[in-house]
């Protein structure tokens, strides 16, 4: 039986880990994800899990230990944020290249410079080209649900890639929310056991993992990761559909909120979507055909599906919680516009678009900010020029 509870995003993630009962957790504390390994070590001390908890000396070591454990043939998980993830970067690429389905619960926090502990997406966006599957969560429930699905997605035989489940630091990780927690046994059945085809601790088959690759092999190996990421689309779909059949909550590549007849829409990820939905509700009350798309799966990027979902809009706001410093906006702005380009080339209708960078270093994005954006979208639709990308709420 599922039960209603109230907990923070960190508690939700730790609860998911308790129910998954991975073989190895290797983690190093960093705000705001510190509580996750802290709760997990309590579960271990209380005998609720039989996970091997490795208290490592850095995040580079945390990911390295996960790689070793996963290569040995077991489920390995970790948690991190911000500079901790940055310290993992080298090993994140190794995990993906070695095709090890490690699961990382990421609590998004601004990457240092200037030092700050609050939410934005600069940490996981820096890892977007690493070969990790990335799922973004609006609230504690989604962080919990995405984690329950993550192992199965990454472990599918034609995928074998690591998975990162992201939630916003403090806003989600420390906010207490209502949540539905599923039955331990049902979660165990849903997640299933992990039996890799090849693994280091198999006494019958010796194996070398992560060997040096000379140039005649590297491009072939990257091509194989590319294909695995293509297959991950289907894996996310398949596991999400099974999740809905089992637990009743529906997850797609993205969530469409009032998009059926929408003329003005915003696209964004994670916690600010809740604020955006409130603005959409208010605008709908005033007769404005406002809608919202919340992207859940950033890697692999569902370009065609997104382009189709956005095609009916007159004007679209693409909201990035990090700046890629390309001088043309954040990564979502670039990738969503690229997705729409295919439609435009085919002579199909595409919305006018404006990019926004918002919420850096935990800056609040308020319902009024969304009203401002929707107001600008109405002007954009009737011909007013807007910048390709601009900072929202910055003091001018």
């Amino acid at each position, binding site marked *: 039986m599922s039960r209603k509870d109230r907990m923070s995003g960190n508690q939700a993630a730790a609860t998911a880990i308790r129910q998954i009962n991975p073989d190895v957790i290797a983690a190093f504390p960093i705000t705001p994800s510190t509580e996750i390994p802290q709760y997990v070590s309590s579960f271990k001390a209380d005998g609720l899990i039989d996970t091997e908890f490795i208290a490592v000396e850095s995040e580079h070591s945390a990911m390295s230990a996960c790689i070793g454990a996963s290569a040995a043939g077991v489920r390995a998980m970790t948690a991190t944020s911000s500079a901790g993830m940055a310290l993992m970067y080298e090993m994140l690429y190794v995990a993906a290249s070695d*095709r090890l389905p490690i699961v990382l619960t990421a609590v998004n926090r601004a990457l240092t410079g200037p030092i700050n502990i609050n939410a934005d997406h600069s940490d996981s966006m820096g890892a977007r080209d690493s070969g990790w599957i990335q799922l973004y969560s609006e609230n504690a429930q989604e962080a919990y649900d995405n984690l329950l699905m993550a192992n199965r997605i990454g472990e599918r035989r034609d995928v074998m890639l690591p998975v990162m489940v992201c939630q916003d630091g403090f806003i989600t990780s420390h906010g207490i929310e209502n949540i539905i927690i599923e039955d331990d046994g049902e979660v165990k059945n849903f997640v299933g056991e992990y039996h890799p085809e090849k693994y280091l601790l198999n006494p019958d088959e010796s*194996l070398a993992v*992560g060997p040096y*690759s000379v140039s005649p*092999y590297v491009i*072939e*190996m990257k091509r194989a990761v590319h294909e695995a990421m293509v297959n991950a689309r289907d894996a996310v779909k398949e596991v999400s559909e099974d999740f809905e059949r089992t637990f009743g909550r529906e997850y797609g590549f993205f969530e469409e909120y009032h998009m059926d007849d929408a003329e003005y829409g915003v696209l964004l990820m994670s916690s600010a979507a809740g604020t955006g939905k409130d603005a959409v509700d208010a605008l709908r009350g005033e007769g404005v055909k406002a809608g919202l798309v919340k992207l859940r799966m950033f890697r692999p990027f569902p370009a065609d599906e997104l382009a189709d979902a956005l095609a009916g809009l007159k004007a679209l706001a693409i909201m990035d919680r990090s700046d890629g410093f390309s001088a043309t906006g954040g990564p979502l702005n670039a990738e969503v516009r690229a997705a729409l380009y295919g439609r435009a080339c085919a002579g199909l209708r595409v919305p006018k678009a404006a990019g926004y960078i918002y919420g850096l270093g935990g800056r609040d994005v308020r319902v009024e900010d969304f009203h401002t954006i929707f107001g600008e979208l109405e002007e954009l639709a009737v011909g007013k020029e807007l910048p390709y990308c601009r900072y929202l709420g910055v003091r001018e």
Partner: protein
Amino acid sequence: MSEKKNLMEGIGERSSWTGITPGGFVYGSGNSEFFNTGDWRTRTPVWKPDNCRQCLLCFPVCPDSSIPVSGGKRGDFDFGHCKGCAICARVCPFGAIDVVDGIADAREAQDGLNGREALSGQGGQPTRKGAAE
């Protein structure tokens, strides 16, 4: 050279991206012996059996296990992994090992000396002539 099975047989620099192992895993162990690196050498030792007293000072100093010993006697070089470092020639007290430049020259030299295809039978290694050119 070995009766061990090469589990990576057929996987090589001509394999398509679907033909290599997931993650670049290398199946099996101790399989560096299947990877012939002898074509890296620019000098080649030439064994002169007539001068050799079988003192066996040479084989322990070879960094690439390229001097096979059987029944207490050394045989001709295994060129599959010989880099031509010439340490064996340096330690030989009897002038039983010459060192010549290149690979193809060595073959000719050895053919001349021993009257046989001393460098043949190194599976997977490019032809000496091709490598030298």
